[in-house]
């Protein structure tokens, strides 16, 4: 699904440049649930941004589902993001004046899907994350866990090839974190490819594979025995 070869990225900070990614090579197969771990500054967020086409690499190859991602302009990147990727952010990033349903339906709007179909589909995904009866509430009326579940529904609604989650439990307490991870595992069980960036060990161990980043290189890449989050959820 994802193939990355010799990815380099450096940021220019005044006169000296900061080499963040120093040749990353890895690939993700369809249906994997991968945790990207590393301390802050290890380059994990940068990697995720490049995977999410929010940022571009200086050199290297990135192939997403057989499509080489290069020479992107903003419009092309927007279309790829819309079609191929679903984002889940640490701070949820819901649009605060839109209801849960409208938030979930937004990616479909940018796909040009009609209003009726958009809302039906959005409702279906809200139901899947267990928030059907909260569909007409705005984000300020939802709890943190509920907000993140709305965000997950939003990431899912366009049926992307890959879900990218950036510290998705970072703003949640552990109980809620497990609930959210339970949801992520269930989504993965349906065959969706998911990448989770985290620095929390317990969250990482709920994935199927852990990729360790340190100072811009992959130091460890191993398959693990998945811990099911459902055992922590009543």
């Amino acid at each position, binding site marked *: 699904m994802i193939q990355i070869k010799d990815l380099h990225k450096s940021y220019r900070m005044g006169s000296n440049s900061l080499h963040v990614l120093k040749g990353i090579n890895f690939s993700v197969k369809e249906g994997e649930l991968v945790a990207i771990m590393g301390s802050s500054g290890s380059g994990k967020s940068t990697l995720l941004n490049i995977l999410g086409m929010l940022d571009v690499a200086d050199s290297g190859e990135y192939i997403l589902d057989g499509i080489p991602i290069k020479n992107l302009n903003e419009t092309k990147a927007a*279309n790829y993001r819309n079609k191929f990727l679903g984002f889940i952010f640490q701070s949820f990033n819901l649009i605060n004046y839109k209801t849960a349903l409208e938030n979930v339906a937004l990616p479909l709007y940018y796909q040009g899907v009609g209003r009726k179909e958009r809302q039906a589909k959005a409702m279906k995904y809200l139901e899947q994350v267990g928030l059907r009866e909260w569909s007409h509430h705005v984000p300020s009326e939802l709890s943190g866990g509920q907000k993140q579940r709305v965000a997950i529904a939003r990431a899912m609604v366009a049926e992307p090839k890959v879900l990218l989650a950036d510290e998705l439990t970072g703003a949640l307490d552990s109980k809620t974190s497990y609930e959210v991870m339970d949801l992520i595992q269930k989504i993965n069980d349906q065959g969706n490819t998911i990448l989770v960036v985290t620095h929390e060990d317990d969250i990482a161990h709920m994935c199927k594979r852990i990729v360790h980043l340190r100072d811009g290189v992959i130091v460890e890449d191993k398959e693990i025995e998945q811990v099911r989050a459902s055992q922590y959820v009543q």
Partner: protein
Amino acid sequence: MRLLFDSNTWQEIFGSIRKNKVRTVITMIGVLWGIFVYIAMSGAAKGLDNGFEKQFESVAINSLFTWAQSTSMPYAGFKTGRQLQLKLGDAQVLQNRIPEIEYIAPRNVRGVFGGSPGLIVRGQKTGNYAVYGDYPVFTRIATKKIYDGGRFVNDKDIENARKVCVIGERTQEELFEKGENPIGEFIRIDNVYFQVVGVHKFTPGGGFESDSDIYIPFTTYQKLYNTGDRVAWFTIAAYDTADVVQVEKDVKAVLKSIHRVHPEDERAFGSFNLGEIFNRIMGFANGLTFISLIVGVATILAGVIGIGAILLISVKERTKELGVRRALGATPREIRYLIILECLFLTLLAGIIGVVLGAAVLNLVGNLTEGGDFPYTNPTVPIPWLLGALGLMVVLGVLIGLIPAQRAVSIRPIDALREE
């Protein structure tokens, strides 16, 4: 263009506007005020314009009056200070020599510029009223509205020096019983019986005429007051295309040559140029219209710039939202359209509310001043002006919207999302 007519686009815009009510209202006030000022001012200017025109509607606007005074310069053997007198024959000479003159009406009067007013008697009732000697052509220059069943002095009256008269509304009121038809009745003017042939409706509009004036044929006036061929003044109307100021000069020049007055004697003949006054007042009204246009457009401009400024701030405030939208697949073009259409929509909505409020105020002021002496009639804004203003707002709205729109797309989604 497809985006413009897509209901989804508008749902997005309504959504963002509806959920930011305070911002929306504050943003709109600037343009609303601008278009309100524009409508109110240009409507008021138009009202004044109409009002002035109405004031002059009973008189040909390119008309002038001229009368004789006394000389101030010796000439051709005459000493200075000679009292001049217009003659009936002057009218024909003026008409012959000045082709721009359309109508010329010699007039005499008692009781306005000196001379005692006529003593009018009917039965037990008496009164003193100004008496005019007139030709029918006078009505060509200044319309006289005559009540139904009556008429003004006509050519037969002049020819036969008939003893007929046209009386005023007040004269009728004071000499006749209520409900009594004065037409065909007789009244005594300075001891001579005259038959009433008409009652004229008085239209206020300045000048020296009043609602009690009595008009009799010029020839009858000559006999009654023994005025011979003396004329108090000429009322002259020039053709619409003529330059009234030039006609006035020509008239005076001709009169000077007839009456052997020094060509440079400025005091020998007096004149009052209604056309010139009218032009001046109309010039004033036009100036007012022009100023209101400038002020209105400037205010609209200021309002639209205000919208642009607030949207610029709101784009900053919405950086994150716009970043999320782009992460979810909004293209830069879609973001740009969103902001521009928001700006445009706010501008137009504010504009339409401003037009409605402005029209309401104009209507109110119009009703309050109706029938008063104040020259203010039917304050309206011409449709092309209105459309022009709305068109201007659309253009300005889009242009101003470009600035925040550009700002919005220049923020990279990754930076927008990183910002806390």
